[in-house]
């Protein structure tokens, strides 16, 4: 994937990791991040 997509993915995926009120992402939340960046199809389908 282009590095611009990678950076956007990383910021959406990891951006909340140090927040004091961090809660685990749900599978649906993470799938929505991938989908929103056009990372769709079976390769990007979370288990």
């Amino acid at each position, binding site marked *: *994937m*282009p*590095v611009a997509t990678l950076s*956007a993915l*990383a910021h959406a995926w990891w*951006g909340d*990791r*140090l927040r004091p009120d961090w809660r685990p992402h749900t599978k649906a939340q993470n799938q929505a991040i991938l989908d929103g960046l056009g990372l769709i199809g079976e390769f990007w389908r979370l288990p």
Partner: protein
Amino acid sequence: MDDGDIAVRNVTYRRFVELGRAPTIEETAGAAGLSGDEVTRAWVRLHEAHALVLASNATEIRMANPFSAVTTAHRVFAADRWWFANCAWDAFGICAALDVDGRIETSCPDCSEPIALDVRDKRSDDESLVFLCPLPAARWWDDIGFT
């Protein structure tokens, strides 16, 4: 993984950033007001839930994703210190988690050519680069060290 485990996880991450390295069980226990055994049991549950990754001895942090507790080929300068990331995705993730700009130094997994880039306002200053994700999402946690 219950609310108590998440609280231990959040203390572990906070101490990781404060120390610039993975906290020990004792350091985490002291910060969390728990016993070492309580932290150990919470870490195991967090590992099983993929909220962090323990070393094979199950008593040390291997990954507090996106941070790596061990030396890797992916270095990030952010928030006034160098960090190790688990992969290129995590290298950007360190800038994201710290909410700062940074510099990433890594290498091309294909030709081994060194790569250095700056992250400014959530973007790479070299947009010619591409990232290869080697495994489908369904297999990322089969062997997270390899992934």
